[in-house]
């Protein structure tokens, strides 16, 4: 009877945790996607001011995920050497580390921000800390003000 009881408790806990982590091929995060027409990331990066404040749907490969909170991802552009960061509200959407290397369809509002050199250095320092590359961080590489294009993400579908 005791063995049976222990087994039942273990089974219940196992089922609970397994159901929470069951693998899914497609996973939605945050609000439902409302747009259907995709905007190439390269178009946004080519003329960011034209998209500033506009809602867009983008698609691309997830090349980086925030290592501490899963609160941002970096999406590869449709062109080489380009990418766009999608930032989400902390805790509202949490991207899992497994999302890296998968394709995402994400919706959000484009924001163009210009940082002073000091702000840009601080941002880069924090990013290096999150990436675990603080040792190789070189502030002298940041020469002047930096314009950063970001997507304030509201919903995403990881495939």
């Amino acid at each position, binding site marked *: 009877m005791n063995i049976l009881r222990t087994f039942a408790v273990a089974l219940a806990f196992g089922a609970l945790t397994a159901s929470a982590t069951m693998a899914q091929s497609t996973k939605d995060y945050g609000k439902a996607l409302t747009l259907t027409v995709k905007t190439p990331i390269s178009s946004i990066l080519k003329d960011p001011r034209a998209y500033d404040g506009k809602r867009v749907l983008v698609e691309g490969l997830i090349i980086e995920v925030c290592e501490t909170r899963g609160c941002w991802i970096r999406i590869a552009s449709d062109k080489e050497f380009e990418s766009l960061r999608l930032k989400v509200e902390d805790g509202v959407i949490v991207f899992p580390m497994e999302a*890296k290397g998968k394709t995402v369809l994400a919706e959000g509002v484009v924001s163009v921000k210009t940082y002073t050199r000091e702000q840009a250095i601080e941002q880069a320092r924090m990013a290096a800390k999150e990436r675990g590359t603080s040792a190789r961080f070189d502030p002298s590489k940041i020469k002047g003000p930096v314009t950063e294009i970001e997507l304030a993400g509201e919903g995403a579908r990881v495939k």
Partner: protein
Amino acid sequence: MRGLKPGAHFPWRRWSIVLHRDIGYLAVAMTLAYAISGIAVNHIADWNPSYRITKTFVDVPPIAAASTPDIVAAAVERLGLTAAPTNSFRPDPQTLQMFYKAKVYHVDLPTGKVMIESTVPRRVLYEMNQLHLNRPKRAWTYVADVYGVALIILGVTGLFVLKGRLGITGRGGWLTAAGTLIPVGYWFLYLRWGYYSGQ
């Protein structure tokens, strides 16, 4: 359940004990999961509580500039990998990223330095964090709500389990007051008076 005789008091203490005992048994697994995950997530600034991320470095011969498919093929061959990556990307002309399940290879093409980033969920802790932070959403939201209500019942019934010198009218009352001072005192010091932030 038998009805109360006219004039008899509701046996609230007996019910407090019964509810406290049985809900306590039911909630023990959830309490452990939430408490352990709570401690882990509290220190999120210092570590990733859900994943073990390791970064190792290896050197391969430099890879000459070519088309991305050729560079990927060369990197796969030099790293001695048996399969092609599921995806690849070049964030800049000098770097190649190759994505495998749970592993990413960052190849610095001119030097041949490779950072291998491996991401593995922490056993048990990952599952606890998923539940505690309500990652599954949907039905789990309601399970967590029910658990919250259960904790409220546990807290309130706990006050009335004992009577007399050790109960709420004696030592228990002092301990309850001391326990209440922790959040209330902290709220005043930290949020209301800005003591810690120097406001």
